[in-house]
């Protein structure tokens, strides 16, 4: 009876700490699930502070990162995922923390950091068994880097991402060619604006170029060479250059509208994993 009682007592005492930390973890997690992110972060921080064994450190930092992410506090989220990386105890945990950090970097448009982290993971032998997941996020990296064609190519290598492949291909097809808009404006001033649907701007650009060109040529015809040079340089050339820049700007702006719409669609309607 006595050894049994002592055993019971020891189990009871050693198990108590565990239970307390577990309870705190559940409490914090419950707050997170109820979307009370501020309080959830406080309680996870409390758990990390008192849990000297570090058992809950990784999970807590991951939840803190996700809570900050939900509140759009991306820098703090990235910091928490870095801490989770440091506290990870297995390759899987390390993988998850690194992917979360890449997602945050995509969201806060730290594109170069995301690129470097993905390259690092692609080269790391530890993660070779999960290369298709890395490729999946590489595809998202291309989306955020406005390289929709490359994104489609990357998603085509993943069986489960055919929807994203087709979607990216469509976006790429719908985009305007900036080079084409500029090139046609070299030949016919205003044509690039017409191509991007900005008809009034295109017509005005054409009119300015005709008028300033007339001023310059007429001055040369009347032997007022200096006038001709000045008119050609300060007026005609200025309007001609402006027309090309304008065509480029319109194409870039239109493309931005298209890609923003695409991203908005993915944000609201795509049900798979996304940053």
């Amino acid at each position, binding site marked *: 009876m*006595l050894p049994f*009682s*002592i055993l019971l007592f020891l189990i009871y*005492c050693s198990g*108590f*700490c565990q239970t307390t930390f577990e309870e705190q973890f559940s409490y914090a997690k419950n707050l997170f699930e109820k979307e009370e992110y501020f309080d959830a972060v*406080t309680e996870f921080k409390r758990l990390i502070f008192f849990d000297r064994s570090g058992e809950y450190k990784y999970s807590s930092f991951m939840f803190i990162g996700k809570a900050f992410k939900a509140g759009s506090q991306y820098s703090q989220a990235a910091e928490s995922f870095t801490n989770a990386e440091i506290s990870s105890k297995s390759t899987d945990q390390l993988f998850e923390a690194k992917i979360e950090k890449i997602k945050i970097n995509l969201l806060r448009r730290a594109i170069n950091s995301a690129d470097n982290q993905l390259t690092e993971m692609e080269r790391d032998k530890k993660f070779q068994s999960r290369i298709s997941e890395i490729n999946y996020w590489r595809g998202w990296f291309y989306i955020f880097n406005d390289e929709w064609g490359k994104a489609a190519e990357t998603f085509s290598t993943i069986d489960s991402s055919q929807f994203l492949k087709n979607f990216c291909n469509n976006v790429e097809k719908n985009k305007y060619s900036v080079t084409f808009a500029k090139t046609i404006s070299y030949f016919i001033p205003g044509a690039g604006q017409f191509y991007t649907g900005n008809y009034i701007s295109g017509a005005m650009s054409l009119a300015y170029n005709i008028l300033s060109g007339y001023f310059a040529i007429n001055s040369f015809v*009347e032997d007022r060479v200096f006038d001709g040079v*000045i008119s050609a340089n300060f007026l005609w050339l200025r309007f001609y250059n402006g027309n090309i820049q304008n065509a480029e700007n319109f194409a870039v702006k239109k493309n931005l509208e298209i890609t923003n719409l695409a991203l908005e669609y993915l944000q609201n309607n795509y049900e798979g994993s996304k940053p």
Partner: protein
Amino acid sequence: MKKILLIVFTLNGMIFPQLNDSLNFHSPDNINKFADHLYYSKDYFRASLEYERLLNFVPNDTTVFKIGLAKQNGKQYNLALSDFNDLINKKSLLSESYIQYYKTLFLAEYDSLLITSYSNRFYDEVAYHDIHKLYFLSLIRSGQIKGKDFELLERFNKEEKTVLKRFLERKIQPDHKSPILAAVLSSVIPGLGKIYTARYEEGIAAFLLTTVFGYLSYTNFEADHKIRGWIFAGTSFLFYAGNIYGSAASANIYNAAVNLRFDTDFNFYLKNNDYLITKEPVFK
């Protein structure tokens, strides 16, 4: 055997509450430890909330002081002022509270309030010394320094004095440009006002554009192309008038940049030197 069992469970009962207490995350002692940890991790908002929770268990002026400090560091200046003011009214932690009250006023850039509320009724010489310094720094920043105030420079050490004298010179005789002079210069020679405000490229461009379009207008009138003449004359006039206005604006922008540079340098120096305060609060 029964006695032994009784002893075991009694021991269990005695030890359990202690364990329970040491691992109770929400015991006053643990709240205090956690709040201090948050404070030193620079999570000031959460730290202030934890200290406020602690106050519900153990009303304590040191905790109120810590709340004030957390709010001050979290840039909740008005709330911090209210906390330090409460302590001053209670005459608790008086010299520390006075220093932090004035430091908060300084950090919040309430220079006028700091200068008007400044008085000589302070608890000890250290507080007196530090508050004089903050008062002097406020005078420099707000540009309200007068003859007798310069004596307060003696409160600073040799190195601080040298730096502050340089800041004073920059404040009293700032390298400002006159907007009126810039406009007049540009009306005499287009672009000269811009050159005066150190915008050399814009000045040269303004001069060239105004004169070239003026010349084009002249030659077109001469060649009997009246419409073109008026178009170029109008363009030249627009450049001329725009340049006069732009020169005055450029002088104002130049002056704003000088002021901004002063504020940035002054605040950077003070921040890196703990606002030249001698007595820093220490958690007890």
